[in-house]
Every structure is written in C-alpha cells, then in structure tokens.
C-alpha cells in the first residue's frame, strides 16, 4: 500500500508543472490505414499487445504543436536507397510509395535539428505502416548537444540486449500501424531528436515515413 502512495506522489511531483497548466489533447492527424500483402506471423519477444481501439488522447499544455515540421534531418546514411531524409519531417505520412525514406541496413540513426531548444512533450513516429512489422532496437534520444555528448535523455529504448550499443532498454517492441508510435518525452528540453533503429522483422533496411515532435518554446 505504501508503495502505491509513493508511486502516486512521485508521479504528482514529476508532473506538477504540467498539472498547473491547461492541458489539451495533442493535435495529431492520423494517416489513412494501409494494408498491403498478406500479414505474416510476427514472433518477437516482449511484444506489446495491440490496443484493439484507438489510442487515448495524449494531453499536453495548450499550444503544444509539431515543432519538427520541415526541420533539417541528418543521419548515418546521407544517400538513402529510397526517398530523402527530408521526407521524415515533410508532413506526409500516408505511407504510400514516394512518402517514405529507406536508409541502409543495420543500426542507423537519423537526427532532427529543431533549430532551437523546445520543451518536448511527445514524439510520434511512423516507420512504415503499409504492412505490420516490428522495428528492432528502437531508441529515441533528446539532447541540446549536436553530438549527443553530456546530457542526453533517452525517452524510448526497446533494445533489450544492448545490440545498438546505447544501453539496455526496458520499453516493449511494437507493431507499426497508421497510428504511429507515441512516445512520452516527459517535458525534457532539447534541440536535437535522435532516432535509432536496426532493421525490422520484414527487412534489414530502415524506413521512416514521418516523425512529429510535439513541443513548445521553453519558458
């Protein structure tokens, strides 16, 4: 019982600044679901169960918006096999051909430079939602340093065996859908958002359709 109280108060203290502000659902616009090909059985450990209903709204302070739209994207593969890194922040998330970028196989990273620091509440990322697939070693990090040296906040990590070399993660694997993956960024302040992946259950290459970073200028 004591531990429940402790958990409640810890959460209260952590989110105290948020509670003091008016909260609104994030203005996430979802793409139309796509289904191509025959779905395969996905056998991945630590896999999140499908919710079976639309994702509940994520509340953030009023005025929170996608601050990644049309922002510069760099990455470990500057010559993607399909598309261009700029597609990651171009606002198109239909998932059809011509709206996603495919970068090299293996562990690869892309970094979005928001241009200035923002208080970030959530990140929504769409890797590929034409067919159900699970991306390996998905890691999302935030930092004010372009080289991710010093203070780095890892807000999502499902690399359960440190394959990517950025530490063990406890988050669950998930199946890509048109809803994208919503990650709670806990209100950290950062200019750079780095996303890592290591291929998927369908292909060793890494695809990105869109990444949206919901934040506001820090007070």
């Amino acid at each position: 019982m004591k531990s429940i109280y402790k958990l409640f108060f810890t959460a209260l203290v952590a989110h105290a600044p948020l509670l003091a502000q008016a909260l609104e659902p994030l203005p996430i616009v979802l793409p139309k679901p796509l289904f191509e090909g025959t779905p395969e059985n996905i056998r991945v450990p630590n896999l999140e169960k499908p919710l079976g209903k639309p994702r509940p709204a994520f509340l953030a302070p009023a005025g929170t918006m996608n601050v990644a739209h049309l922002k510069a994207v760099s990455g470990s593969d500057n010559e993607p096999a399909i598309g261009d890194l700029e597609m990651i922040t171009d606002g198109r998330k239909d998932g059809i051909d011509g709206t996603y970028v495919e970068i090299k196989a293996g562990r690869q990273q892309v970094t979005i430079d928001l241009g200035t620091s923002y208080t970030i509440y959530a990140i929504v990322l769409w890797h590929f939602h034409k067919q159900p697939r699970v991306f390996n070693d998905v890691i999302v990090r935030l930092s004010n340093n372009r080289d991710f040296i010093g203070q780095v906040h890892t807000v999502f990590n499902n690399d359960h065996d440190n394959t990517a070399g950025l530490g063990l993660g406890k988050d669950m694997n998930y199946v890509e859908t048109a809803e994208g993956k919503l990650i709670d960024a806990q209100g950290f302040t950062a200019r750079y958002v780095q996303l890592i992946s290591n291929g998927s259950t369908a292909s060793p290459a890494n695809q990105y359709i869109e990444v949206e970073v919901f934040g506001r200028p820090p007070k």
Partner: protein
Amino acid sequence: MKQFSLFVCVAACALAAEPDLNGVLQKLARYDYNQGREGLLEFEAIARKLPAKELEPQLITFLSGEGSLAGKDFIVRQLSVMGSSAAVPALAAALRKTETMEMARFALERIPGEVSGEALRKALKDLPESAKLGITNSLGNRRDAKSVSLLQPLIFSTNSALALSAIAALGRIGTPESLAALASSRKNGSLPAMEASLVCAERLAAQGNVAAADRVYAELNQPATPVMVRVAALHGLTNSKQGLAPLAAALNDKDPKVQGAAIRGLKEYKDPAASSLLIRAFPNLPAAIRPHAITALMHRQDPIALPLFVQASADESSTIRAAAYTALSALPAPSSVSVLAKLASDPAKDPADRDAARAALDRMRGKSIDDAIVVALPSADSLLKLELVRSAGERSIRSASPFLLSLLGSTDRSLRREAFKSLRETASAPEVVPLLSLLAGSKPTDRRDFERALSAALRRGDAASSKAVIAAFQSAAQPEMKESLLQVMGQAGGDEMLPLLQTGLRSTNADIVRASILGLSEWPTDTPIEDLLLLTSTTPEPANQILAQRGVIQLVGLATRSVPDSLQLLEAVLKVARMADEKKAILALLPRFANKTAFAMAQSLESDPEVSAEAKAALSRLQRFAPAK
C-alpha cells in the same frame, strides 16, 4: 578355377537382380484399389527399363486375362501412354464390357492412328446410347474428322447430355464439315451450338481458313445473339480484315459488355483506322467505358490520341483522369510536359490527382522529355517551376544542373530547397567548381544543403573535381569553409581526400578537428583508426576526445581486423573512456569478437554501476569463454 567361380557368382547376382515382369504382373492381377502401391511402383521401375515392343504384348495378354479390375485399370493407363495399334483389338474388346469401358476409352482416345479412331467410331455405331456419351467426347478430343457424319444425328438426340456432348465434339473437330453440321442448330438459336461454332471457327482460323471463321463471327455478331456469344464473336473479328465495320458498330451498342468487347477488339486491331474510330466514338461512349477506351488508345501508341488524353486529363471523372495520366506517361510527348506539370503544381487540384500527374511526368521516358523540362524551366511561373525542378531531380536530368545552380540564390525558400534536393541527383563534375564558390559565400542556414549537393557532385565527378575541392580546402581562409569541405570530403570518400582529413585532426580549431573526426569516423575502411585512437587522449577538447573514441569503436565495428587486434583497440578506448555511453558501445561490440579477452573485458565492467546491466548482458553472450571454476 577361382576366376570361374567369381564369374558364376557375378552372373547369379545379375540374374537375381533381373526384373521379373511376370512376377509383378501376377501381383498386379491380385491388386485392388485399397492396397499399397508397392506393386505398381515395381512395375513402373521395370517398364522404364524394357523397350515398349517387349512390354506391350504382355500388357495386352494381361488385359484379356482374369486379373483384377484395379490391376487392369492400371495396365490400361500404361497402354494409354506407350500402347500402339497392336493394343487396339484388346482395348476395343474391353470397350464393350461395362466394367472396363471407360478405362478402354481413356486409352483408345490417346493412342494415335487410324486404327484406334476406327475402333471408337465402330463403337459409337454399335454400342447402346448409354455408352455413346463418352465416345463422342473422345472423338471430339481426337478431332476425328471422319466421325462428323456419325456425330451429326446425335445433335438431335432426346438424351440432352448426349446431344450437348455431340455438339461440343463437332466444335472441337474444327473442320468446314463439322461447322456445317452445326449450322441448323446454330441458326435455330441453340446456345451450345453457337458456342461450339465459335470454337470451330477459332480452329478454322488457326488453320488458315479465315473466310469461314469470319462468316461465323459475322453471323453471330447480331443484336439477337446472346451477349457473351456476341462478345466472343467480336473478339474473333479482331483478327479479321472485315472486322473494323462491325467493331465500329458495336461501339454504339446499348450493352456495355458489347461496347467493352468492341474496345478490346479495336485495341488489338491492326489497321491504324481503329485509333481514329475510337477517338471519334469517345464522346458518345458511357463514362464507365471511357477509361477502357483511353487504355486501348494508349496500347495502340498512336500519337493522334494525344489531344484526347490531354482533354481527358481535365475530365470531371477521377477514373477518366487517372486513365489519361497513365496514357500521357505511356505515350511520351514533349507537349505533355507542361500539361502534367501544370496539373501536378495546381494547388486547387485534388492531392491524388496531383500525385498521379506527378508520377506520370516522372515516368515519361526519353531525352526529348528531359529537354522539354529544361527548356520550360526558365520561363515557368513559381509553382510550375517548383514542379519542374522536382521532376528534373527525380529524372536525374544532368543538363538541368546549370539552371538549378542559378536557383540556389533564390529568395523563395521552397524553390531553393527543391533545387538543392534536385541538384543532389543531377550535379556532377561541371558543377563542382560553381558549388565551391557558392558554398564560400553561403548563409549558415544553407551550408548543410551545399555540403550535400557538393558531395553528390563530387561522387559523380572526376579527378579534376577532387583536385578542385582539395585546392579550395587548402586556400580557404574561413574555418567554416574548411569545416564544410571536411564534411564533404568525409561523405564523398576517396584516397586523395584522406591526408587532408588527417591534417584536419591537428588543427588548432576545435570545429575543424570535430569535422575531421566525423569525416574519418564514417570512412569506408579502417585506415584512419590509428589517427583517431591517438586523438582519444591527445586532443585538448573533451568532446572531440569522445567523438574520437566513438570513431574508433565505429571503425572496429567494420570487423576488418583480426579479433585480437580489434579487442586491443577496444581495450585502448576503454582505458580512456570516461562516459558510460562509450563503455556501452564497447560492450555491445564484444560478443562480435568473442574470446576469453572479450569475456575478461566485459567482466571488468560488471562492477561499474553505470554499465553493470550492459556488462551482464555481454557476459551472458560470452558465457562459453568464462574461465573454468
């Protein structure tokens, strides 16, 4: 004596191994359907080794013997494959017994030659009506022209199954006589007779008797004929010299199925007049049929259809518009460039239309299309220009590069952005020097775009391009320019660039050192590994020390060095690593160089609270190298 004994033994063994056909046939005489297939397989093994001339008489004898029905069924199947006229009398006898009739017919149908055909015809004459159905089928399958007179009376049999079978057989026979035999039924409106006549006509046309076939198609292409028969008749008329007029008439038919058949026919029709005919008929066709007409015209690849495609691209029906975009892309014409580009760039259009028009513009093949884009670029308005710039990149039009370069100074951000993007696909050696001078005077916000365009040009460039970049680096006064060029050289690679990046490591400017480290860390080979290793402890900037550590780890990850060498390098980095991130990266690599040293390295980090969990994960994968307790 010894040799003789050996010979006797070998001969005995050979005899023992000789296939015993009689024994197997005896087994087959007792074989039944519910038994195992061993005996059948044994027979097949023997049959493969024996010549047909030796095998066939024994099978014929078996057939007239007292063997089981299942055994005879099996043997008849063998005869259907390898039997000759010699087997016909036995099979003809079997045809007259109810229990063996079907299997005998099966074999007789397949045995070529006049004797087997005569046996079937005789059976058709002699046997009761109940047995005739299968025989008519067999005669039809054999396309037995001599049986037409026997089959014709059966068309009028009161046994409807037999009548249908006879009609179908006459159709399959495919001779003028069999067609004539079907005439009265066909003219009386019998659907099976019409269908059989179509089959017959197809056979006749294939044999060169096109006139006879055309007469049938013309006769069946009448308003009173069932629709699907008309559709088939129109299909037949596609290959007829007299087909154009009936196909044109069918375009105006009230039934969309008939109209569809006419369009399909005109799509394939050899006469060029078919295109004009389709174009003239297009406005009067129902909306649902028009996309098919566009596809047919596209298939004909006739340039006279272009104006129609352009007109259809503005149609109110999205299906017609989509067909028009595809047709325009399949019939490449310079005049279509502006049509499609305007559609793709029009913000008032539906996004799906814009995407389709864009895709069509990119799909059009040919240098004339590339030239049309390049010519249209300078005078296009801003939205159209944006679209043409995008397409120039998508189509990798090298000749568009000079104009794209001129757009890099544009105040229109979208246009500048698109020009950079396209230049990455088009720029090559001629653009290297202009890009270098533009980079030198660029704003900080555009610098990264310049770097990417320049490195793309450099990759497609020649030795002179590399020399130009090296010269620009050596003469650059601004550190930002040097930093940018180091990034470019790192991205482009190339042995001639390596010394410059190595020199950059010794710069007193921390940003230049950083750029050199990043360039070397991405190097495709492990050549710079020692340079980076030296920097892990010597460079004064702590951030650059960390970047150098990451660089070594990354190049070790290429796995081009031996396991001991790789571990030695990782151990050296571990000694200077202060941050948890680099230790975690080393722990991730250790299982790839698994041995006792790797195990010991992971073990040494187990007690480090910052990386203990990662060390345990590495140890679990290296467990087999744990020292024996």
